[in-house]
């Protein structure tokens, strides 16, 4: 058997095969539904990712604030001074020392 001839004959047969262009019914609708579904899922994933990132940022911020307030030496009884300062400021006009002879 001549293998090269057989190869040529079989290839000639394959060339004669008409391409089968059948498309299943409503195939384009199926593709569009898949695209829409993927878009919806992608949107949800995007939201979930954003929320997770926001949550992580919030936790990190809370930890930093906690650390700052924990490690900062507390100015003792500053609140009194502050209220005193406020009172002095408010009553400054009234509390003018009497300079009239």
């Amino acid at each position, binding site marked *: *058997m*001549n*293998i*090269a*001839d*057989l*190869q040529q*004959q*079989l*290839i*000639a*047969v*394959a*060339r*004669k*095969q008409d*391409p*089968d*262009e*059948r*498309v*299943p019914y409503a*195939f*384009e*609708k*199926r*593709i*569009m539904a*898949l*695209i*829409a579904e*993927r*878009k919806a899922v992608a949107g949800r994933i995007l939201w979930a990712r954003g929320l997770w990132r926001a949550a992580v940022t919030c936790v990190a911020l809370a930890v930093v604030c906690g650390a700052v307030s924990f490690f900062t030496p507390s100015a003792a009884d500053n609140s009194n001074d502050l209220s005193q300062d406020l009172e002095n400021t408010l009553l400054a006009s009234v509390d003018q020392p009497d300079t009239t002879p």
Partner: protein
Amino acid sequence: MERSEAELIAAVLKGDSASFEPLVAKYSPRVFATARRYARRESEIEDIVQEVWLKAFDKLGSFRGEAPFEHWLMRMTVRTCYDFLRGHQRNRESSFSEISEPEEDWLDRFVSDPGTAVEDAEAAKTLINRVLERLSPEARLVIQLLEIEDKSVKEIADLTGWSVPLVKVRAFRARGEMRKILARMAKDKYL
């Protein structure tokens, strides 16, 4: 009024997914015809075409419009078919002892009179498909494009993304691989 391809693509890129549908409807026959050359089961063919369209939608932004949309799509189709062949290499293990009676008759006729054998095209079709299925993915793709679809080496390089010398080397090897398979088939049957 019917919109042009460029208008449809621009609309899809702007976020109007529905404009993609006319493109799917227009080019699906061509994509199906190509996929049917590499896969046999209808479910596999539909999977390939579906993958092609989803990829096309995802990568539409990379379509620059310099070449027709159809060329860009066919490149994607051929590459997806090649990926499919690489993923289904185990299917190549079928034996030639499974050759049907009409195929055997065709071979007998070819041996006795090579000129008349072509007449029974159905048996020959089954036989060539069986031979193609036994080829490696690279060899099958090259034989299909170069020998059966009669494409040039440059066209194949463009479709597959391989370099021109690589296509030539693979074509040479593919012919050898095919001859080897045919020789084995002849040996199984006649020795």
